[in-house]
């Protein structure tokens, strides 16, 4: 049975292996150079006792490679489109399910072997990619926030990959045509990723808040800043900026346009800045929770696909 899977999909495997190897070469070469620069930067810091803006100094010219790394976000989707969606749909579209489901292996055996292999492949490729990117981003993670590239490192890319493949298989087993299956997988994957990433993720854990002075309040380094705003003397939230009418009369005298005078005045009148954030220490908790969400979805979709295939009037 595994022989069949290999014989039918080996071209895709070669292609995917080639693409992964190319990415590995690119990331190892650039990552080594970046790591080298970072070590030198740290050594300079130690010598001069001042570091300044490391991100700006070190990697300001490397936009393209950062874009490529961020683009690995779509790779799990590609697994869903090219490995997941056609798995059942192409057999039915070509009629070859009539051939393969009347050989000496049962339909459930066929399904189990195919699904296992394609999920394993997605997990393997997803892990390799996530591992490479996580390593590549080590200096960047230390200088900025790991949350900036939450979706391409750690364990979530593996979960996204498994989810995408399971989604593709389930959709393909419902549509039985490759193109509609691919289109639907694309739409559903993007919708779920956006819903979880944008709307659900910030609320997975209650954010922390810091109340600080207007001048220099910041979330601890490496945190994921969710919102920031001004708080008035009575504790009322005022958003990012003040309307002229909201500025206390005492501070208006100095001239509203002159920031240098306004800020100390506001501070003196009890204004603060509030920042809500998720601290860097929660990175793995977030990774774990989001991965769990997508793994549960993947498991449910796999069950749907099995049910569809086994009860299908082929």
């Amino acid at each position, binding site marked *: *049975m595994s*022989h*069949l899977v290999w*014989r*039918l999909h080996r071209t895709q495997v070669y292609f995917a292996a080639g693409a992964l190897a190319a990415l590995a070469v690119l990331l190892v070469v650039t990552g080594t150079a970046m790591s080298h620069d970072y070590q030198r930067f740290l050594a300079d810091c130690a010598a001069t006792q001042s570091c300044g803006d490391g991100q700006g100094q070190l990697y300001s010219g490397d936009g393209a490679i950062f874009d490529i790394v961020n683009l690995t976000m779509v790779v799990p989707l590609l697994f869903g489109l090219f490995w997941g969606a056609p798995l059942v749909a192409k057999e039915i579209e*070509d*009629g*070859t*399910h*009539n*051939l*393969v*489901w*009347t*050989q*000496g*292996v*049962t*339909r*459930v055996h066929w399904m189990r072997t195919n699904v296992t292999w394609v999920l394993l492949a997605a997990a393997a490729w997803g892990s390799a990619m996530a591992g490479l990117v996580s390593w590549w981003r080590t200096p960047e993670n230390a200088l900025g926030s790991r949350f900036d590239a939450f979706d391409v490192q750690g364990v979530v890319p593996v979960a996204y990959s498994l989810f995408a493949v399971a989604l593709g298989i389930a959709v393909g087993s419902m549509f039985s045509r490759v193109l509609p299956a691919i289109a639907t997988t694309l739409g559903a994957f993007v919708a779920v990723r956006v819903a979880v990433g944008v709307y659900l993720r910030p609320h997975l854990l209650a954010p922390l808040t810091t109340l600080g002075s207007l001048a220099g309040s910041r979330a601890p380094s490496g945190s994921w800043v969710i919102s920031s705003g001004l708080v008035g003397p009575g504790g009322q939230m005022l958003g990012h900026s003040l309307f002229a009418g909201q500025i206390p009369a005492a501070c208006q005298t100095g001239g509203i346009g002159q920031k240098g005078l306004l800020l100390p005045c506001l501070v003196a009148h009890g204004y603060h800045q509030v920042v809500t954030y998720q601290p860097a220490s929660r990175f793995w908790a977030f990774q774990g929770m989001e991965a769990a969400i997508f793994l549960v979805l993947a498991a449910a979709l796999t069950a749907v696909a099995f049910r569809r295939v*086994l009860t299908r*009037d*082929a």
Partner: protein
Amino acid sequence: MSTPQPTPAVATRGLGKRYGSQWALQDCSLHVPRGRVTALVGPNGAGKTTLLRLLVGLSAATEGAAEVLGRAPAPSEEFLASIGYLAQDVPLYKRLSAEDHLGLGAHLNRVWDATGARDRLARLKIPTDRPVATLSGGQRAQIGLGLALAKRPQLLLLDEPVAALDPLARREFLASLSEAVAEGDLSVILSSHLLHDLERVCDHVILLAASRTQLCEDIDDVLASHRMLVGPRRNGSGTEPSVHVVKTTRTTNQTRLLARLDGPVLDPAWEVGEVGLEDIILAYMGGDDPGPTELLGPVGAVR
């Protein structure tokens, strides 16, 4: 059912399949003994494909029951090993070669006669190293048949295997089939709407029309029991108790009855003549002749 065989190749009782509100097959009761080469005929949409898919377990019956080689068609390895199935349009993996398909078959089946299949393809000079998409329809059909036979099935079910082939390829395909039947203990059900070809290879016939079974018996018996009665124009078949009219054709001064007889024709006004299988089948299917006809359905037809 009066055959001595304990387990017929196929036995169905009231088998029916509905898709949505549409019955694709209804009330289909069959009994096909082993060792027969059965022609499954009927007009398009009569339920031939549906019946075959029910028999191989690819789809599930809405009502009734089927037994194939004494087993209910179920997704078990034992059942799948006992049947060979060639679906309509000969589904093959387009980019794989015949040799690749034989390799797959060897991995997917416990019993696999690769040597026999290779010999057969070699005799037919079919290239086994090229993607099957580059081969002719006749060559693909032969590969499909070869794959189905390599399982060494007890029952081979072929869905319109020759429909898309030119006359020469059709003849070659049927010759290969006859050869395989001669070689071993094999029952075959072969659906087609090309009656003429089937008569050469088949010894049993199932006729489906209007989603129902109209005939299921040995071709010799069909030929022996059906006659054309020609007489002066009149209405009905008179009082003949042994004449079961399948189809009536009236011209201005003549009445022609294609009928199943289960006894002698008493009225000497009828001129009784033999009739070919194709005419009998067409009569059951509802007609070749223009003009007013009346078709009696399954009356006395299903054994």
